[in-house]
C-alpha cells in the first residue's frame, strides 16, 4: 500500500532526504526510527503531500506522487485516504472535541451534520473519550488530546495513518494510553507509518522498521533484524 522509490528532497541546497527507498511488506505497520534531524518528519510529511520533493516517487493508498508541486485536487483526494497525527496534536481550540472530529466528515466527506457527529461520537468512544465530547480541547490532558487527534484522523476512514512521534510531547504517565490505541489499530489491520523513538513499542507493533541517518536509509528490516 506504500511504496517509496529513491526519494530525494533538498532544503536550501542540502539533501534532507537522499534516495530513500522502502522495501517492505505491503500492508503493514512501518516504524521510522533514527537520530534527531535524520529526516523522519520530512519523509512522513512527503507521504501526505505537506512537503514536495525533487526526485523519486511515492505510491500511497492508490495515489502516485511525483516531484514538484502537487495539484490541489490530487492533494484533497490523497488526504481523504491518508490521515496524520502530529507530535503537537494541533487540535482546533475553538471547536469542541466532538466538532474537531466531525469537521472533516462534514466538510470533506459531505456527511450531514447529525451523521458526522454520530460518526465522531463512535470514534471518541473507541478511543475512550465518549464523556468529553462537549469539552474544549484545551481542558483535556495531553494524552486525551492526542487520542482526540487520532479519532479526528480516523474520521475520514483513511487507508493509511501517519503518526509523527505521537507520544513524545506527553508526560511519561500518558504515553501508554495513546500507544494502546495505536496498537489496537494495528491489530485491527490499519496500515500505518509511525515515527518513534520508542523501541519497545516498535518491537511490539511494527513488522517493518526503517532507520534513517542523515537523510539516508541506514538499515531496514523486521524489528528483530534492525533493533
Amino acid at each position, binding site marked *: 500500500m506504500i511504496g517509496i522509490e529513491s526519494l530525494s528532497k533538498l532544503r536550501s541546497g542540502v539533501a534532507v532526504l537522499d534516495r530513500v527507498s522502502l522495501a517492505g511488506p505491503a500492508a503493514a505497520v512501518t516504524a521510522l526510527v533514527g537520530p534527531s534531524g535524520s529526516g523522519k518528519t520530512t519523509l512522513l510529511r512527503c507521504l501526505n503531500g*505537506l512537503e514536495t520533493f525533487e526526485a523519486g516517487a511515492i505510491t500511497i493508498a492508490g495515489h502516485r506522487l511525483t516531484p514538484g508541486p502537487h495539484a490541489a485536487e490530487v492533494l*484533497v483526494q490523497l*488526504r481523504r485516504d491518508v*490521515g496524520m497525527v*502530529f507530535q503537537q496534536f494541533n487540535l*482546533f481550540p*475553538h471547536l469542541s472535541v466532538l466538532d474537531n472530529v466531525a469537521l472533516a466528515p462534514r466538510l*470533506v466527506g459531505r456527511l450531514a451534520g447529525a451523521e458526522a457527529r454520530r460518526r465522531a461520537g463512535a470514534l471518541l468512544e473507541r478511543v475512550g473519550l465518549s464523556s468529553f465530547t462537549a469539552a474544549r480541547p*484545551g*481542558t483535556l490532558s495531553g494524552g486525551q488530546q492526542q487520542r482526540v487527534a487520532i479519532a479526528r484522523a480516523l474520521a475520514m476512514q483513511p487507508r493509511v495513518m501517519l503518526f509523527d512521534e505521537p507520544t513524545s510531547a506527553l508526560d511519561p504517565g500518558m504515553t501508554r494510553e495513546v500507544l494502546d490505541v495505536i496498537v489496537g489499530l494495528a491489530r485491527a489491520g490499519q496500515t500505518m507509518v509511525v515515527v518513534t523513538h520508542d523501541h519497545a513499542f516498535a518491537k511490539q507493533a511494527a513488522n517493518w522498521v526503517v532507520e534513517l541517518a542523515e537523510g539516508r536509509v541506514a538499515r531496514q528490516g523486521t524489528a528483530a533484524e534492525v533493533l
Partner: protein
Amino acid sequence: MKGVGRAVSGVLLAAGWVAMLPAGGAELDEVRRRGELVWAADQEGGGPHVYPDPADPRTLAGFEVEFAALLANELGVRPRFQQGQWDRLPLLLGQSVDCVINGIELTPERRRDYHCSRPYFGYALQLIGRRDAPPAAAADVAGTGPSGAWRIGVLSGSAAESEMRGLVARGAAQAEVVGYDGTLDSLEQVRTGVLDAALMDDCIFTFYADRFASLRAVDRPFAGGLYTVLSARDTPLLAAAIDEAIGRLIADGRLKSLYDRWDLAGRQQMLLLRDATEIPAARQRSLLELVSQTLPLLLASAGMTVLLSCAAFPLAIVVGLAVAIGRMYGPAWLRPLLTGYVEVLRGTPLMLQLYAIFFLLPKIGLALPALVAAIAGLALNYSAYESEIYRAGLKAVPPGQFEAALALGLSKWQALRYVLVPQAVRVVMPPVTSDFIALFKDTSVCSAITVIELTKRYSVLALTTGRIVELAVVTALLYLAMSWPLALLSRWFERRLERPAGGRP
C-alpha cells in the same frame, strides 16, 4: 474608547476654554498701541470677498481686503489678516482677532451676540442653475423638480441657507437643502448635475460666472440683506470707532469708488446703505427653551452618526478580511495590488478620499448621493486598517493549525473559513471594537461632503444660537451615551481573550 473619549473631552475642553476667555479682542486703545487691526476672513470663501490673488497666491485680493485696509487706515493702524473657517469666524473674536470682515450677514442673532457695525455692503440672493436644465424660474422651486424635490446647495451657516430652509419650512419650496463648507463646492455640484441649483450672494456668481460657463443665473435675485463688521461685545469703543470710520468712508465716496472698481454697482450700494434700517436684536432663550428646541435636531443628527458608523463598519470588516486573506493566501499577482490598496488608503487623509468619491466621481459620470459616498468612503478607509488587524490576527494562529486542517483534506479556503478565521476573529475582537469607536468619531469628517451628523449639527447650532457651552455639554453627553456601550463591549472582549480558553497546542 480612546477615540470618542478624546473627541468628547475635546469638545468639553474647547467649550470650557471659550467660556473662560474674556470674550473679546483688544479694545481700541490696545489696537492703537499695537498698531494693527487684526481682521478675520476665510480665503477659501473666495471672490469677490477675499481670495488668493491669482497673480501671486501668497497675497490676498478681494473688495473686503481693500475695505479692511481703508478701515484700519481710518483707525490709524495697519490691517493684519487672520485666516479662519467661515462658519467659525465669530469664534475667533474670543481670541486674537479684533473684528470679522467676510460677508457676514446682519441677523437678529448676531445683533444679540456681537457688536454689529453699520452695514458696509448690500447683497441679494441669486438662484443658479444649469443652462440646459430646470428650474427655468425661481418660482419653479415651489413645485416639484425633475425627480421629486429639488436639490439645492448652499454655503453652510449662510443667509442663503436659512432663507432656503425658511422657504422649505413655509412650504414655499420643495427642496432638499444641502450645506457645503465652500461656496464653489455647490457651483461645482450644479455643474456635474448632483445638484439642481445653488443659492448664494449675487456678487459671488457674478464674479465666478466665467469659470462656470455652463451655469446661469435663474431669474432676478430675490431676498437679500446687508454685510456687517463683527466685533466682540466687550469692545464698545472699537465698535464705535469702526462705525464712525464706515460712516466717513460712505460720506466721502471712498467706499463707492472701491465698489465701482470691483464692478459692484457703487451708486446702488450707497443708496442701499443710506436707507438701511436697523435690525432688532434677538431675544435670549432660556436653557429649557434652548434644549427643547435643539435636542430633536441633535438627536436626529446623532441618529445619522449611528447610521454612518453602523453601515460603514460591517462593510469595512468584510472588505478588510477579504483584503487580508487575499494578501496572505491569494494568487501572487494579487498581493502587490492589495498591498497598494492598503497603503494608499492608510497613507492619505480620509477627508481627501471622501472628496474624491463625492466631487471627482461625478466627473466620470458616477454621481453618488452624499450618504452613499460617505458610507463608501468610511468603509474603504477603515477596510485598510481592518485588513492590517486581520493580517496580524491570522499570523497569530500557529502554523500547525493550517497544516492540521490541510492534512484532514480541507481545501485552503475551507481551512481559512473553518479553522483560521474563527481563531483570528477572537484575537482581533478588542482592536476591531476600538476601531469601531474611532470610526464613530471619524464620521464627523463626512460633514465636508454635506452629510450633517452630530458634530456638524452642534457647530451649526452653537453658531446660530451663540450657546456654545450649553450645547457642547448636551452634545458630549449624546456622544458618551453612544460610545459607552461600545467601550463596555470592547472591554468584555478583552476580558474574554485574557481568560484561558486554552487548547492552543
